[in-house]
């Protein structure tokens, strides 16, 4: 009996030692706690493993870890990542190193972002307004391929994603873009077609670019006066400067507003007239039938 007990204890100890040895690089180990914890430190294991990065070990991005409980588990970030993390610290409060780690596998995207109006605002002007990777792509633990309807940057979701900032009046005032930019896009034929599922309808990034996005006033923007004809021409063959003036996202022009109001008045007044006419016709018809009693014409 004593021998059996000793053997069991020994086996358990050995098992514990083996798990300990693998702990540093295994996502399952981290999820053992973080899968069950609540709040910002929670990671949904099922959703994580289904994400495009689901096979990664946590420490590949979370290279620095705080607290004694993580002692000996963290890796060492290189200088580039560390420097970038320092720049992102104001934007990405939970783990700037992990945010900066995206660039290790996506250097080309980072280069484009760095030169973009968003990247310049965050990295150079140190503003808290511009987006970092996760602002548009969503939680890094649950990133889905762009083709997935669950992806925040899917063709049919991108308008909503851009809208989280570009629909804000504070933003349009601060950065001097059209106040109604989102609204005007949404009511345009492009926006409507996209809403009802037209695969060819352009979303924001199809014309403005994504990681390399530029200010419209920047001559290198695909929608700058110099490039707009070419950009519209991607879909509208033979586009001319005259044609590309159609889309500006500027607030509705007073003349267009006047025409719309006139049409509404015309429609409503015709509607009222025919409703009254038909109602009177019905009443008269009933009255006639009652007085004739037979239902046949004289």
């Amino acid at each position, binding site marked *: 009996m004593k021998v059996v007990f000793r053997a069991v204890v020994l086996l358990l100890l050995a098992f514990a030692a083996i798990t300990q040895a693998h702990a540093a690089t295994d996502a399952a180990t981290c999820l053992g706690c973080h899968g069950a914890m609540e709040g910002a430190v929670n990671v949904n294991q099922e959703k994580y493993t289904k994400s495009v990065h689901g096979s990664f070990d946590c420490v590949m991005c979370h290279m620095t870890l705080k607290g004694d409980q993580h002692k000996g588990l963290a890796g060492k970030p290189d200088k580039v990542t560390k420097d970038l993390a320092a720049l992102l610290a104001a934007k990405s409060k939970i783990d700037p190193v992990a945010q900066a780690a995206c660039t290790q596998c996506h250097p080309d995207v980072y280069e484009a972002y760095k030169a973009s109006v968003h990247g310049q605002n965050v990295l150079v002007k140190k503003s808290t307004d511009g987006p970092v990777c996760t602002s548009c792509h969503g939680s890094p633990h649950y990133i889905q391929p762009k083709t997935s309807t669950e992806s925040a940057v899917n063709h049919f979701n991108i308008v909503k994603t851009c809208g989280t900032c570009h629909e804000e009046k504070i933003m349009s005032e601060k950065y001097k873009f059209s106040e109604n930019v989102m609204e005007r896009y*949404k009511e345009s*034929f492009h*926006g*409507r*077609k996209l*809403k*009802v*599922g*037209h*695969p*060819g*309808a352009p979303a924001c990034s199809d014309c403005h670019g994504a990681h390399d996005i530029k200010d419209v006033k920047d001559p290198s923007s695909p929608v700058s006066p110099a490039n707009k004809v070419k950009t519209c021409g991607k879909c*509208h*063959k*033979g*586009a*001319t400067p*005259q*044609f590309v*003036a*159609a889309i*500006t996202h*500027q607030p*509705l*022009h*007073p*003349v*267009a507003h006047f*025409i*719309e109001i006139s*049409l*509404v008045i*015309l*429609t409503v007044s*015709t*509607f009222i007239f*025919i*409703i009254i*006419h*038909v109602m*009177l*016709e*019905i*009443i*008269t*018809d*009933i009255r006639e*039938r009652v007085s004739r009693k037979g*239902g*046949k*014409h*004289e």
Partner: protein
Amino acid sequence: MNNSALPSEVERFDLSARIQHIILFTTFLLLSFTGWGLKYAYRDPATAWISFWGGAKMAGIIHRVAGITMLLVFTYHQFYLVNAARKGGLRLTLVPMPKDIIDLVQNFMYFLGLRKEPPYFGKFTYMQKFDYWAVYWGMLIIGVSGFFLAFPVTVSPLFPSFTLPWIWDAIGAMHSDEALLAVVFILIAHFYGEHLRSDVFPMNWLWLTGKMPIDQLKHHHPAEYDYLFGEKKDK
């Protein structure tokens, strides 16, 4: 009056007119159904409704094909009129006349019980004339704006530069608002006046047979009745 000499019904629309009507309403319905989904894209069930028509791409194709067909049948109608005039068979019964204003006033008086008899309507009442000419208005406003929207690159040189900040919004509004007006008019005025009123309910078979029973003609279009059979009555 010698009733035996009178036919039991009179032809109102010949075969060509009936076919034109069928093509017109088929394309009208297709255009309304597919256009509706885009006009109210942000209201449910627009997306589901567009999927029903085969998705946004297919709905767009249906809308364009139906639109072109409608413009063609409208063009054909003009030749049909010219041809009828050439043969001497065109009576200007649909041309708006001052009498239509009198009819309108008298009809409202009749509705309100201020008059015992309905107006002395001709072959087409003022509502029917309105209905007919509304198609011309629709073709002009919706047809032309639809053509512009279908070929924006091609038509854009037509617009002077001062119109550019508003012209496309105006064209879009014209297309969809006038379409709504047309749908509302057809659903209420045309459907009640031609198909749902009690003496033809639930359907006026005239759209298939082209013929109107003589008692209906006498009741609803007394001037036309007298025009056709008045002399016989006098004899």
